[in-house]
């Protein structure tokens, strides 16, 4: 029982970070039909902004803040203006290819210009653990889970309760109509990109103390975010949340109870089953088109 609880808690802590990446992924998809294959690298990169800040002698909190600003600028504004916008008229496929190339570019740049080896990364939460019915829970786990939930909860409130948030939803659902109704859709799409950049930065700061900052970290996170988004529902924020948590837990459970050699296969099989049985995802609503 203690063993199961331990796995569950570890899985939720990891899953909450996957959820952050998956939510950003979903938002971009909704707002601009961007399937961002560089999403993993978006989570990898901000950690290095923090490390550079620390290298300049900034205290951790200031370095994180600076990293957030740089992330909003680079992963939000520049990504949209320089890459996505010029490519939107071409349709989705060239953009998919460009994001694959962007991921490669980010990965290789970090490797060449920062370091090819993993770097220790300071935790923003205190060290130490607590015991819970026999399971060991670290403050980092608790902090990650709470931070991620608060971030996603706040985002959901923003989208549901504010005028801007609803305009963003309208833009996602039907850009042409939203534009006619006077919504500045370009600005709304930009907000989406900024939110994604912010979520990526948070995820990066949360995950790097555990993963260690490394240029190749994005490979795993990107794939997991992708699976979480589809499993949960490609067009729902809470879908991505549930998907992220689910994948985190399933990954850990299957490593212990199914097969460590095939642990990576279980989420993938789940993905295929979901696509076949319930293509809109667990919590998604059908988009109702076949072609």
């Amino acid at each position, binding site marked *: 029982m203690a063993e199961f609880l331990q796995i569950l808690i570890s899985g939720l802590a990891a899953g909450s970070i996957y959820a952050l990446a998956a939510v950003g992924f979903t938002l971009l998809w909704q707002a601009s039909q961007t399937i961002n294959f560089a999403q993993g690298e978006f989570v990898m990169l901000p950690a290095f902004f923090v490390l550079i800040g620390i290298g300049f002698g900034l205290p951790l909190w200031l370095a994180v803040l600076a990293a957030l600003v740089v992330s909003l600028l680079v992963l939000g504004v520049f990504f949209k203006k320089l890459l996505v916008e010029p490519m939107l*008229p*071409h349709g989705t496929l060239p953009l998919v290819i460009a994001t694959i190339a962007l991921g490669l570019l980010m990965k290789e740049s970090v490797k060449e210009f920062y370091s090819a080896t993993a770097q220790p990364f300071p935790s923003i939460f205190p060290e130490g653990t607590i015991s819970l019915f026999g399971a060991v829970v670290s403050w980092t786990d608790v902090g990650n889970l709470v931070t991620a939930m608060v971030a996603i909860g706040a985002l959901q409130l923003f989208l549901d309760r504010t005028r801007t948030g609803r305009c963003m939803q309208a833009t996602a659902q039907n*850009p042409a109509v939203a534009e006619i109704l006077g919504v500045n859709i370009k600005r709304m799409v930009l907000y989406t990109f900024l939110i994604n950049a912010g979520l990526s930065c948070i995820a990066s700061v949360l995950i790097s103390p555990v993963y260690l900052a490394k240029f190749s970290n994005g490979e795993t996170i990107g794939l997991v975010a992708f699976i979480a988004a589809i499993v949960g529902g490609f067009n729902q924020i809470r879908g991505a949340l549930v998907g992220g948590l689910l994948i985190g837990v399933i990954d850990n459970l299957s490593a212990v109870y199914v097969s460590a050699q095939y642990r990576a*296969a279980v989420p993938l099989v789940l993905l295929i089953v979901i696509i076949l049985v319930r293509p809109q995802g667990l919590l998604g609503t059908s988009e109702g088109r076949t072609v």
Partner: protein
Amino acid sequence: MRRLAPLLILAGIAALVLAPLGQGNYITYTLCSWLIFSIAAMGLNLTLGYAGQVSLAQASFMGIGAYATALLTMAGVHWLLAAPLAMLLCFVIGLALGYPALRVQHHFLAFVTLAFNTLVFLVLRNEEWLTGGSLGLVGIPRPDFWLVSTMKQLPFYYFTLVCFLASAGAMYWIVRSPWGRAFRALRENPVRAESLGLKIRRQTLLAFAIGSAFGGGAGAIVAPLVQFIEPGSFALVHSFKILLMVIVGGSGYFLGPVLGAAVVVLLPELLRGFQDYYLILYASFVIVLMIYSPTGLIGLGAKLAAKFKPAREERRDLQQGAQL
């Protein structure tokens, strides 16, 4: 132009025949790699460029083809029998994978194949009794054609070239046949194609399965070329690599994948001076290319030619159907 075509093709083949003469083993080997990746990319081009479906599993089909060929030839079966069997296997797996995936929404083939590629990798790595696990299979024999042995690099190149020309010929026939032309009708206007009596799903499924078989064919040549295969060579990142080949060259153009494969295989060589930075340069190049010419290098050429009569492009981001 039409009358020139056979001449151009002959000149191209002559160039390929003459290319390795007087070159070292390395150049010859690299040319082999290029032709092999061209075959795989041509297959993906059928799926992507003609049928409009993204497959992210081409490397895994190469893997299935390579492992099947390796195991069969190492058990004493001749390559001439092993390779078609490997391709057939890929074709069948393509059908089995594509059938349910295409039954649901249009763009989900991309996601299913993405998962499939990693699953194949895991099976290749974990099923040690069959595949040798992470240590791979070593010592795959090169085919022997009674009078000619392909053990040396130059004969192997000509063997690869024959396979390449056969594949290209088959692909040309597929694309030009009335059956193949339907692909393009499908890509350009699926609704209309369906109303004209085309079975979209069956057509797309066949395109995917044939494309996968081409991947298997490429794998069947890679195995004896390298004489060693391991799961890592067929991981997801290699599927991305092949996808980039098709797009960079120009998807939907017959020679696009061949050009794209040339860029990817020969690029590290061309950018030697930049050493470790070549991937950064390559990635930047792809991004810029996508911005200015989403139809790839061939599209770029066509675009430059048509510069004087710009066509109006629809804002597809506003469409509901703007999908993968």
